[in-house]
């Protein structure tokens, strides 16, 4: 077909645009909101399954990764600096609005976990959004969350429990938030809803 007047798309070339488009802002916020609801439900599940870990409470940390998922998922999808922080913060705020068990403290958690997740992508200059960044972000966010928990909720635990708890959380976040975040991004891209983002165009 003759098409002299075609203006080519600039999707493929050049460095990714750093500035946030409206769709970046809204979809990151939507991810935050959706995970805010998930956090709220997960909090209830956490409370409900608590007695099952009566003999060894730190064991419950294996469920922890879900709380760090937006900090990994949002940057993988949106690919902008600040996506981890923004998504995790909004998720914290929404779960607090819905009546979270941890009240406004979740917002502080969201902020710090988001910052920690952000570091994983910042370490690579926010240029690459693949599994090393995702796993690093997940591990950092998990470590931060564990520290916060021990100071806030379980200061009376023995050192052994504290270590186990931290290790379990980091493993859980690397698996659920890190690997899970990558798998979820792929599944979402396959469903075609990420067509507005570079992450959704790459594989189609």
């Amino acid at each position: 077909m003759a098409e002299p007047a075609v203006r080519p798309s600039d999707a493929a070339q050049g460095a990714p645009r750093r500035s946030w488009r409206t769709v970046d802002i809204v979809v990151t916020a939507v991810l935050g909101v959706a995970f805010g609801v998930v956090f709220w439900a997960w909090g209830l599940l956490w409370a409900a399954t608590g007695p099952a870990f009566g003999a060894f409470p730190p064991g419950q940390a294996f469920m922890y990764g879900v709380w760090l998922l937006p900090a990994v998922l949002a940057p993988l999808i949106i690919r902008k600096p600040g996506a981890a922080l923004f998504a995790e913060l909004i998720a914290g705020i929404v779960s607090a609005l819905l009546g979270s068990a941890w009240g406004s403290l979740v917002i502080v958690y969201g902020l710090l976990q988001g910052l920690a997740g952000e570091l994983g992508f910042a370490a690579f200059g926010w240029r690459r959004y693949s599994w090393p960044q995702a796993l690093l972000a997940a591990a950092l966010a998990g470590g931060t969350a564990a520290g916060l928990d021990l100071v806030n909720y379980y200061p009376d635990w023995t050192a052994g429990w504290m270590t186990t708890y931290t290790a379990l959380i980091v493993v859980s976040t690397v698996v659920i938030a890190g690997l899970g975040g990558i798998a979820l991004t792929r599944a979402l891209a396959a469903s075609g809803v990420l067509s507005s983002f570079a992450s959704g165009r790459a594989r189609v």
Partner: protein
Amino acid sequence: MSAPLSLGPARPVPLSAVNPVAQLSAVLVVTCVLLVSGDLVTPGVLLAAELALLPAAGLSRPGDVLRRTWPLLLSALGVAWVNVAFGSLDGAEAWLSGATWALRVVALALPGILLVASTDPVRLADALTVHWRVSTRFAYGSLAALRLVPLLAAEWETIRLARRARGVEGGRDPVAHVRLLASTAFALLVGAIRRGSRLATAMDARGFDSGVTRTNARGSRLQPLDRWFVTGAVALCAAAVTASVLSGAWSPVFS
């Protein structure tokens, strides 16, 4: 669940007269003090003050209070129990420690519940952008996304029923329950992202990304009441810490 989900225009209550940023400032002050404190007296005093504010936030009936706070109370009990039963302390000390942490969790969470009960999210976004210079694009972008929460809740139920119609349900198998939950959540996420992308296009079509400095039709004014509210919160925190120190209970977390 429906009460905390109703993010529509909040019914005006006495506390709504306080500007959202003043409320947020007070919440920040109280939160910081509580995060540092590790005794029973500080959260006790602050909690008493927060409870006194419940009627001003329109939460005077016990049923209303309970509907907003039950997950919080459940969790506070859990925290107390974990610390009493599995902490390194014994006997009365363990009980004291458990009560301290439970009280602290409730005192930390209640300000947020007061804020939600008395504040319309649009007014909050207005106040944040006008007074705290929060980016209008991020504030109203988030607000637009927040509006999807009640829709998500309704959609969750529909998706669950749609799964049953396809012959898929958890039954007695916990693994099947988890898989069902995951697949329902995924379908919900796909719908939410799609709707969010459309919402962004619609917002851009109305000039949201025009680059023009945005005006605000409603405005947001700070009044003397707001200054008094924040001052009151600071004074209260000072009083709580003083009482704690004087009674010899003060034991900061980071020491």
